[in-house]
């Protein structure tokens, strides 16, 4: 089957880029990966995403698609006959998956990031408490969506698994930074076990950045204020 010319502009460290790459792997689509250099934006990026100037950008037969969750849906729809479905098949299940994926980005991720940007112990403690509360919501969501199966999407990885799972590398880095467990086996056992399954999935494993390398990058991105 002809997939057309597929390029992805991104970076090894980006959660959002990883989403697109996992989706392309799930569909066995070959693509050219164009790694952006940290601190600069390439001509191609600026031309393909003039509105936001951000990665990832998928370029399929010279047509750009932007925003990670939109790219994942595009990949599912453009190559619907390839591999397994990424979005669930029933409208209600799709709505649930989209709802929680939006929650991950709009509420959960914001809280996680605020641990890295927190100034002082008080702010950090408050941020940690918020992440724990929101992770608890996601535990309940997992139980509801998975229905006893290994992934949010059921038997195999899908949209919501990708949306949350792509954060697992950074999740570990923030844990180290905060010196506090943020994915607790006893508090959120289902999510904990799901995380291990997700990271070991063959379409995910080669993409997950190494914790030490990511932690080093995090220190560049979120420098600590000098005491």
């Amino acid at each position, binding site marked *: 089957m002809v997939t057309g010319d597929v390029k992805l502009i991104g970076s090894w460290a980006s959660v959002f880029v990883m989403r697109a790459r996992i989706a392309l792997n799930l569909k066995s689509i070959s693509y050219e990966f164009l790694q952006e250099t940290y601190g600069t934006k390439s001509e191609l990026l600026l031309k393909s995403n003039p509105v936001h100037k951000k990665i990832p950008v998928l370029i399929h037969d010279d047509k750009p*698609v932007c925003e990670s969750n*939109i790219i994942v*849906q595009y990949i599912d729809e*453009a190559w619907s006959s390839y591999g397994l479905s990424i979005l669930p098949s029933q409208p209600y299940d*799709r709505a649930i998956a*989209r*709802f929680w994926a939006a929650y991950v980005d709009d509420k959960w991720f914001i809280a996680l990031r605020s641990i890295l940007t927190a100034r002082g112990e008080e702010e950090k403690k408050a941020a940690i408490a918020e992440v724990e509360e929101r992770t608890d919501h996601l535990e309940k969501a997992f139980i509801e969506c998975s229905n006893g199966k290994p992934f949010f999407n059921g038997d195999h990885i899908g949209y919501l698994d990708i949306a949350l799972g792509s954060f697992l590398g950074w999740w570990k880095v923030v844990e180290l930074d905060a010196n506090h467990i943020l994915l607790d086996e006893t508090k959120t056992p289902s999510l904990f076990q799901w995380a291990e399954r997700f990271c070991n999935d063959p379409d995910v494993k080669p993409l997950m950045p190494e914790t030490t390398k990511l932690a080093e990058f995090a220190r560049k991105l979120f420098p600590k204020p000098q005491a």
Partner: protein
Amino acid sequence: MGDTEEVKLLGVWFSPYAIRPKIALRIKSVDYDYFEEDLFGSKSELLLKSNPVHKKVPVLIHNNKPILESLNIVEYIDETWNASGPSILPSHPHDRAQARFWSAFVDDKWFPALKAAAITKSEEAKEKGMKEVEGGLLQLEEAFVSISKGKPFFGGEAIGFMDICLGSFVGILKAREKLKGEKLLDESKIPFLCKWANEFLSDDTVKNVVPEIDKVVEFLGELEVRAQSAVSKT
């Protein structure tokens, strides 16, 4: 679909987000029971039960299953009643991605900038904010020209996803023009969007669904009074 379909919509008359599912349900000719939430009062039991995470409207309840978030609800309506009426999302994957991209732009960048500019007490922030809002409208004008290809709507001949998303804010823009003289829908700057806005408001699926501009003007005025009295109490 079965003959025992039960469709409820929880909303607030003023909310652009609640207008969106109403238009979508109209496009698909779906009958539903509407429940108005008390904007300034307490939230109903039904709302708290159906949307425990965000406690916000709109909420669509279809055969006792709640669906949340306005654009999510619109996609759900399009997929569930796909055999009825025209499609709301475009059919080609790239066009669907475009529709989702621009609606995310409206919801995540453009409208929050307008809201912030409207609320801020700082003149400097207001000016900066309004520039961003105007800049956004110019980008949306360009997007409209490219996507509509000479047809009246983003969706082509009929109202589609992106029309519903941006169109739900037209009432507020027109009301702010009446209340504040703020001319964001400026024919000299965004002629195509201005024409589109009027087409949108006169469409059969929108006409009796969006609130009357004068009612919105009155409400915006009331909101301002409440905001000011809240400030003077501190």
